[in-house]
């Protein structure tokens, strides 16, 4: 990485890969790594099928394997995994030590070619990058291994671009976007969480359209689907949050899939009215805030657009914490400039907690609403500001199925913005 980071909120490339594989129900990650990777690199990922990191197959390589090679340990581990672990897809991932020592992991994995189960080999050794690197790597490798095309389904779409663990309302968000598309007759493959994730991946070659919600991630996946199955990517810069952006989202998808516009408009009207029934019930008790938002680009942009363009708050600053490469930063700044308020927010790309605190000090006395992760909670208090959690990590509470996107999600978000003290 470019520089040291205090209290990271994203981890290494192995973390990103475990995040992908672990969130696919009945996918089995197999670690070729030293002790500790299973525990640390799986932090905040969803290994509930395995029962947490304790259930994660791992070669647990010690000094002997570092010095003399660990391929025999890997072989035993893969063999045992296929025999004991009940999965439909297996992915061999590496940790730093087994990535540095030169083990030919691909060759060992190839020895198991005859297995009835698909097994991918992904060189995710932690130092190769961060969570986002791992996400890109593992999603592409998984799609390459599993996706097939039998016959294009004109009403099927694939949705991706969001690394699972860095969306604190992931399950709710995936459910909400699935629900919205279903209302206009479109079936969405979201791959993660649902128990038919692997079936969705296998079937994903039949999609008529790919929806990538990130301004910079998973472009490798866009390219693969296009070149292999002819599926066009429809790229958004963010999640659709609130009635306006949900309407745009549904119209855009409908146009691309050539859907009946009457049905789409009817659904949009109903969804918009749903939101305003709730906003109206606040008896005009609208508490206008001047806000700072700290979070990943796809989610933060979506939230900011709702907060400013629909709900009517003043944006002071947006701090993007995902490792957005320089070549994409300008287009993200453009998006912030487009927010419908003459006062333009400051834009920063930063994920170090101390640096973020220094940046935020500038707004002391002006900011009234601070949104971010649990790391920002104390900072919000210091600045005398109301705090609402919107970003990774959420260490304060369990979030199960609430969403922050679409129409149902923006209402949940609004609930958090009202401070009765």
């Amino acid at each position, binding site marked *: *990485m470019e520089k040291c*980071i205090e209290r990271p909120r994203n981890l*290494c490339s192995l973390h990103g890969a475990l995040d992908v594989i672990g969130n696919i129900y009945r996918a089995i990650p197999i670690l070729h790594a030293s002790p*500790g990777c299973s525990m640390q690199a799986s932090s905040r990922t969803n290994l509930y099928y395995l029962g947490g990191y304790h259930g*994660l197959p791992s070669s647990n390589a010690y000094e002997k394997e570092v010095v003399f090679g660990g391929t025999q340990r890997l072989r035993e581990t893969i063999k*045992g995994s296929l025999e004991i672990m009940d999965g439909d897809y297996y992915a061999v991932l590496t940790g730093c*030590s087994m990535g*540095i020592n030169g083990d030919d992991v691909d060759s060992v994995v190839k020895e198991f070619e005859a297995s009835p189960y698909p097994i991918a080999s992904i060189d995710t050794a932690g130092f*190769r990058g961060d969570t986002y690197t791992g996400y890109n790597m593992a999603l592409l490798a998984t799609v390459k291994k599993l996706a097939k095309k039998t016959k294009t389904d004109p009403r099927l779409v694939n949705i991706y671009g969001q690394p699972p663990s860095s969306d604190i309302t992931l399950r709710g968000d995936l459910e909400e976007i699935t629900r919205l598309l279903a209302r206009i007759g479109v079936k969405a493959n979201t791959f993660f969480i649902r128990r038919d994730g692997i079936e969705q991946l296998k079937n994903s070659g039949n999609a008529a359209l790919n929806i990538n919600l990130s301004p910079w991630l998973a472009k490798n996946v866009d390219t693969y689907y296009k070149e292999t199955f002819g599926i066009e990517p429809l790229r958004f810069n963010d999640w659709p949050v609130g009635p306006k952006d949900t309407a745009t989202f549904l119209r855009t998808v409908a146009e691309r899939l050539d859907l009946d516009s009457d049905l789409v408009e009817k659904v949009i009207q109903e969804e918009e009215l749903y939101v305003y029934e709730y906003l109206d019930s606040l008896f005009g008790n609208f508490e206008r805030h001047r806000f700072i938002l700290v979070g990943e680009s796809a989610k933060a942009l979506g939230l900011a657009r709702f907060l400013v363009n629909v709900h009517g708050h003043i944006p002071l600053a947006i701090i993007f914490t995902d490792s957005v490469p320089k070549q994409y930063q300008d287009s993200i700044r453009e998006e912030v400039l487009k927010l419908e308020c003459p006062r333009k927010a400051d834009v920063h790309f930063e994920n170090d907690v101390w640096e973020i605190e220094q940046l935020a000090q500038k707004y002391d006395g002006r900011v009234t609403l601070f949104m971010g992760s649990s790391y920002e909670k104390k900072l919000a208090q210091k600045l005398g500001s109301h705090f609402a959690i919107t970003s990774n990590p959420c260490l304060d509470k369990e979030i199960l199925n609430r969403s922050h996107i679409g129409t149902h999600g923006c209402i949940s978000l609004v609930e958090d913005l009202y401070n009765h003290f």
Partner: protein
Amino acid sequence: MNKQIPDTIRDKHPGFADVQVGSSGELREKAQAHCLKNAHRTFEQGIQCVQVNSMNALVSLQDTVMVIHSPLGCSGCASFGAIDRLNVYKHHRGRDNAPDSHVISTALGEKEVILGGEKRLHETIDQAVKRYNPKIIFILASCASSIIGDDIDAVAEQKEKEYKAKGKDIIFAPVHCEGFKSRNHATGYDLALATLQNYVIRDAHPPKQKGLINLFATHSLSWADQQEMKRMLNAIGLDANILPYNATYEDIMKIPAAEYNISVCQIFADEYIKFLSEKYGTPYAVTNMPIGTRSTNRWLRAIAALAGKEEEAEAFIKAESDAVREEVARIKRKTDGLRACLTAGTGRGFAAATLIGDYGMKLLCMHTPYYDEAYIDDFKRLEELHGTDFIVNIADMQPYEQVNLLKKYKPDVFIGMSNWVSRLGIPSFHILDSKRPTFGYRGVLYLGRKIEDALDNNNFNKNLSNYSKNAYREEWYKKDAFSYLQLPEEN
């Protein structure tokens, strides 16, 4: 720098094993004959590492910064776990506004792995000083940093000189805790305490302070447990400084001044306490974790014997036993004769196994990560309670074996980390609790009530078992639980 305490690993302990299985009697007899050898699991699941424990032992110290010299992954437990655990502790102590711990990752990437990461380490340390000007900066090694050969000792020495020349008296304390260093992750604790001695205390030789007792305890203790231990010590006219959790620099510098050293269990700080006895002549007692009346009484009696407070201890034990007798007896009417399986870290496991004896339960099998000739007496004591036949699975979790075994045994209750056990519908609960008392007499009641609750209402597990399955093939359950364990003769 001439280290007073050289780096050692617990693997060298006589009779050390982290992979073994047998009845308690069998394993103990082998250990007594000095022929207990480590076995080999061909299939393993995830385990903790040395670095996590070094991190946990040191991250909470006040006015320090922890630099983790590694790619980002090795900050997972610190960033998402340890700092917040400290926040919970501070909250319980009414110290919400006390400063957070600071963890900075050097965030090594491919470039650093190829060309070396020492420059990045220098830069990171400079940031730590600029931001916080701490008293101590810990530098933790990782698998990556050690394989690529970064010399954290040399960097520590350079930085100390560099900052001294600028008038800053900062201690730079490296810890060689790379994950693959030892098969026993408790080594991480030893390395952390050795670092405190080698780099912080150094040659300090403070005069003995009458009445000062060091109580070495792990990060996994709740404030409630600390309070219970203090309560018991106060009742016999003693008091203790609990170390090193959230300790100040002054607390650390006073370690050699203690009149006595005691520990919360037989593993944490055992080697460091022996060193303190050799170097500073401090008498010590290393016993067992005070969970359950039997283990609590043993713990208290060992400390009382050190300080000549035997009479006070007996009076206290009698009073406390009387106070809990009725409720324990009441709960025991529900638990008597129940068959239990247990999973815990070594120290906590032994103690928990005695607690279930308090409640009349019979131990069927025990999962614990390590065997060591030093635990022979502990196992003997358990055998007095539960007989010699209970299975001891020396395993750092390995739920694939546990689930297989539990499906065959069908115990009435399971104690330990229970994600996979809940799915079997068996009544279960954790013995580890970072908020409530599990130690001493308060713990006896708290845990007893917890067991009673788990037995009285098992609806969560029962219903869950209809909708959730563990990630193992049906064929696996038909095989012997230890099919993947190669015993030494076969190696």
